[in-house]
């Protein structure tokens, strides 16, 4: 048995999903996401692994995100996006800051996903803004939203204001975040956590993007479905 940290897995192929909430073309939000994705792919390659990147540009999904939020109906592009996220071994999510928060489109997209779709997946959180005054949006707002989704957000957050684009500090932070993501992806924690305790998270039938179809017959509710009366309520207070 070898120590996993000495012997990183090699020859593996990993799926990386990149979600960009940028709306202009070209978009600095998309640029930040792409630069980070390229860095992740390059680092993985240096370590003998391959990263396949799927980019989800939320601008193209805007009408379907509206539909998903209002009627829970997933259009064809949303369906593809959910499939890509479900398959992903790691994520990069990037949003512009509007009115001191992540964009509504970005927030709505993640709010329309099943709660258990992204459990334990490593994620780089990233945001762009016109000024450095919005720098804490990533740590204050994105980090808590993704904590709810039970992701493993990497320690380094990415934020780029206008002045950062000419700074090599941003490049260093991208490099740091990318390294963190690659190591977390290679650790395959998401898979291990799922294997060890998937059933301990809340699911509903057909959740996790349709993957959750296991039905547990050994529950109080299932016993109630087959006759009798409900078990006594637990004491309140």
């Amino acid at each position, binding site marked *: 048995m070898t120590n996993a940290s000495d012997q990183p897995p090699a020859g593996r192929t990993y799926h990386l999903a990149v979600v960009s909430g940028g709306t202009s073309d070209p978009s600095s939000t998309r640029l930040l996401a792409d630069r980070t994705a390229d860095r992740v792919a390059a680092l993985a390659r240096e370590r003998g692994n391959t990263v396949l990147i799927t980019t989800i540009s939320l601008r193209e999904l805007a009408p379907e995100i509206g539909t998903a939020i209002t*009627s829970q*109906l997933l259009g064809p592009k949303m369906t593809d996006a959910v499939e890509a996220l479900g398959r992903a071994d790691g994520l990069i999510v990037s949003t512009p800051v509007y009115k001191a928060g992540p964009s509504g489109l970005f927030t709505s997209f993640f709010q329309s996903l099943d709660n258990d779709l992204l459990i334990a997946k490593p994620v780089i959180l990233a945001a762009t803004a016109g000024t450095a005054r919005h720098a804490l949006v990533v740590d204050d707002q994105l980090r808590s939203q993704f904590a709810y989704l039970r992701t493993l957000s990497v320690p380094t957050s990415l934020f780029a204001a206008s002045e950062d684009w000419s700074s090599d500090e941003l490049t260093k932070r991208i490099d740091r975040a990318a390294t963190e993501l690659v190591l977390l992806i290679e650790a395959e924690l998401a898979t291990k956590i799922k294997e060890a305790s998937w059933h301990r998270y809340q699911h*509903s039938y*057909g959740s996790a993007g349709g993957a959750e179809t296991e039905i547990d017959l050994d529950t*109080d509710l299932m016993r*109630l*479905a*087959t006759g009798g009366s409900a078990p006594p309520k637990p004491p309140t207070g």
Partner: protein
Amino acid sequence: MQFGIFSVSDITRDPVSGVTPSEAERIDAVIRIAQKAEEVGLDVFAIGEHHNPPFFSSSPTTLLAAIAATTKRLIVTTATTLITTNDPVRIAEEYAMLQHVSDGRMDLMIGRGNTAPVYPWFGADIRQGLPLALENYNLLHRLWREDVVDWEGQYRTALQGFTSTPRPLDDVPPFVWHGSIRTPEIAEQAAFYGNGFFANHIFWPTSHSLRLINFYRQRFEHYGHGTKKQAIVGLGGQAYIARKSQDAYAEFRPYFDEAPVYGHGPSLEDFSQMTPLTVGSPQEVIEKTLTFHDTFGDYQRQLFLMDHAGLPLKTVLNQLDLLGEEVIPVLRKELESRKDPESADAPTHEGLVKAKYGDQPARQPRPNANRGDNVTGASPYQDSDDVQVTYPSIV
């Protein structure tokens, strides 16, 4: 195979004329729609249950009794009867009464109801909705099958020596469908009792309904009610029909765009693509409905939603003419030719009587004279010799 229509009972502003019908107008219209359903050769009319405006159907059995009284063949039913906020004892009594006055031309579909404020109005809690539904049905099931019921549960006052009257017609309980979109426990309960399972099949792609229906079929077989193919499945659907496809789109679009449930959301084209909704010519409705059979195999009941979103009565009646004259006859013929001889027939009172009694006469319960309770003495009915009566114990 039974074909029919189901109505939500919404009273919605007609977005074209700008007029909102009065409650009186809409209730009268729904009765005429149900009568029309029989006239054009449909088999089933179903009404929803709601307890808040803009819906009128708080009291389905009263409406359905009126419809049954003015029709001859039509089966009247619900979509759905709320098994959570109604007392199962009242469901047992009211629907048995409907069964008698309709001469067996009825059944019912039970569902949980998803309007949160309705629960507290009736002393219930939506967070307990699922166990409440399961327990309530367990009681309802017994009330229709046992003359005297002792029962204790979590959500309702206990019963000692209770008899639900009238006893079901011919002592054969009304057929029950369990309606659910994504709750395996409801499918399990339907399978356990050998009841029907109905997938609303309106808002989501067909694949969503298929998973749960397949589970229900497996469990139906597991509990020994027959093979998977003999399980009893119903499906919803909706259609807007015109002779020419582009007319159907043009006529239906303003109603779709402002429909209470999906209005201002997906486009009519996307919704037709992604869900079972068919907008088009009779031939297109036939073709799409046959794809349901491709997916689910033989099933016993197909209901269409035809009268919602403010569509005026005249339009709905025209729709029913097209459905009854041009769509259903073709579907009947086609599905009959595809039917596996093993699969179940659609449930009817006559079928259930035959299954229970064969050629023997059905039981006709005659009560004994009033003695004030069912707890002391023997059965409250003259003909049931061997009924075991349980006495309450004094602790």
